[in-house]
């Protein structure tokens, strides 16, 4: 794997040599995120969000383990133990606010990471597997976040659990037994709370394992880059360390500043006030919404209001919501344009920005009450979402005339600096 010019790990002190002969862990790290991993020299700041996603996962696992030390997964005390953490545990408020906002930040950086991949065509051959594993991580994140939101056992927790498990109830014949099985009862209760806690503790470690596969798969072809042109020689790359460790260090600083502003000065801004009311099975909040990162999908779910002959609208909504994510698994084979980067795809680029706007509109409608005009807007927006991936992208790939590509990464970098490539920089292929 990697490139032939990758620097080889050479232990400097005898102890490291001894270790390298027995358990080459330092060598592994060196080749993964050290001087031994050559990376295109032209990555922009949108390439920071992969490392930042990993950082967010670590924050969630650390604060989550601490939250679990003070949490009681029992419907009689869950709300009380969370308040106890907030009020009496040393720095408990910090742990809880960091965990709650950490989930939001995890989704923010992951969404930016995904949209970077969409723009620069990072899902295309030979990187399909990285994309697919990334989507698996995304699905696991959604499951983890949903179950985590149930744990404080507030009103939104309870009714969120009820509504989301109710989605499975839409499946014909087996739906209701599945819903009852998921909850371990006829409504969310102690059984559901306990299994959600157990799985909420487990899944992050599954995510971590898939992240390792994601990075492994990344190291086979190496990182993509903004030009979408493959690396052609040593002059196109720099070692990950120190170049990208320094850049990621700066990125992490900016991330932490934004995170600290939310945690310390607006910790409840992204949450919903109703979740500070204890779960009450007898009273539904006026306006149930999931956390913001689910809003686009929630809008798609609610957009189906008319039965399609024998298929009820409720089932259609559920199918469409799952389809909206599952279709991304087919993306590498839907967009067949040989050009990766949106920079050299004028038509693709226009539709990309429409898609981004479309998803933001869907998100807004998903967070709004289920009334007009939001339902109508989300119907149009959801229609575009499906059309974009399933109809428009394959057509663009077939008919678009891409702009001329640079000969190499080096050429593109030099052109940016107003120079032409030196003869020496041309790869000897």
């Amino acid at each position, binding site marked *: 794997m990697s490139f032939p010019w990758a620097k080889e790990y050479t232990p400097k002190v005898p102890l490291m040599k001894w270790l390298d002969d027995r358990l080459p862990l330092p060598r592994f790290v060196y080749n993964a995120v050290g001087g031994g991993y050559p990376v295109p020299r032209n990555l922009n700041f949108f390439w920071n969000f992969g490392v930042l996603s990993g950082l967010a996962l670590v924050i969630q696992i650390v604060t989550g383990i601490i939250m679990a030390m003070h949490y009681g997964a029992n419907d009689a005390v869950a709300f009380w133990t969370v308040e106890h953490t907030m009020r009496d*545990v040393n*720095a408990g408020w910090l742990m809880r606010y960091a965990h709650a906002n950490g989930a939001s930040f995890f989704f923010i950086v992951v969404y930016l990471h995904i949209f970077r991949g969409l723009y620069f065509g990072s899902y295309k051959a030979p990187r399909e597997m990285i994309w697919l594993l990334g989507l698996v991580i995304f699905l696991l994140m959604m499951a983890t976040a949903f179950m985590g939101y149930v744990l404080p056992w507030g009103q939104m927790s309870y009714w969120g659990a009820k509504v989301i498990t109710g989605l499975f109830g839409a499946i014909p014949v087996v739906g209701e037994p599945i819903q009852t099985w998921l909850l371990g009862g006829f409504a969310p209760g102690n059984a559901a709370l306990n299994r959600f806690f157990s799985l909420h503790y487990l899944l992050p470690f599954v995510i971590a394992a898939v992240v390792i596969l994601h990075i492994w798969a990344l190291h086979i072809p190496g990182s993509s880059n903004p030009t979408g042109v493959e690396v052609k020689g040593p002059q196109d790359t720099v070692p990950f360390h120190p170049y990208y460790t320094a850049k990621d260090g700066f990125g992490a600083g900016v991330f932490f500043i934004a995170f600290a502003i939310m945690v310390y000065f607006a910790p409840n801004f992204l949450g919903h006030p109703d979740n500070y009311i204890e779960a009450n099975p007898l009273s539904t909040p006026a306006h149930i919404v999931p956390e913001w990162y689910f809003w686009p999908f929630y809008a798609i779910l609610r957009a189906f209001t008319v039965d399609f002959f024998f298929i009820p609208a409720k089932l259609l909504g559920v199918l469409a919501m799952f389809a909206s994510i599952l279709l991304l698994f087919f993306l590498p084979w839907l967009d067949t344009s040989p050009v990766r980067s949106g920079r050299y795809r004028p038509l693709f680029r226009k539709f990309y920005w429409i898609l981004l706007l479309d998803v933001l509109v869907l998100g807004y409608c998903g967070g709004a009450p289920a009334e007009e005009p939001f339902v109508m807007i989300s119907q149009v927006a959801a229609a575009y979402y499906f059309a974009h991936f399933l109809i428009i992208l394959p057509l663009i790939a077939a008919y678009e005339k891409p702009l001329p590509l640079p000969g190499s990464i080096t050429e593109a970098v030099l052109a940016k600096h107003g*120079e032409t490539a030196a003869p020496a920089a041309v790869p000897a292929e």
Partner: protein
Amino acid sequence: MATLEGSADADLSKDDGGVRRRDFINIAAVSFAGVGGVVALLPLVNQMNPSADVLALASTEVDLSGIQEGQAIKTIYRSQPLFVRHLTAKEIAEADAVDISTLRDPQTLEQRTVDGKKQWLITMGVCTHLGCVPLGAGEGENKGEYGGYFCPCHGSSYDTAARIRKGPAPLNLEVPPYSYTSETAILVG
């Protein structure tokens, strides 16, 4: 001729002062981040210390008025048993008769009680060996061969002043800090 490397001029700046100033920034950035990381660990460690509600229960009031001579009660101080014993004259005499130089943990009964309240022996009910609860405070329990407390785990025997006399325990039963809030009430902790 353009290359990706810096120009020769840039290389010149790598001399002496240049190198040192540049390295200094990198070292400063890394050490700053390191300090931040260590400081960030403090709340992660501190959260395991007792929480405010646990600390709020760190003192216990005991009403002595109902305890007859020769009786003892078990109550709770900091989630652990507390023995409050009303010694009889005979038990006090037995305790005073011991030559403290022969003891493993030399203390007189006076040192283990409050002046003028020698009949009230307040100790933790936690064996100083490995933390079991000794017998002897409850009605009809084995008080051991020295008439005080007996720990069934590894056979430590305490006398009527709750001093260790026999067995593996290294120290006398601990006397917690307490004070009399009235003639018949104490505040422990």
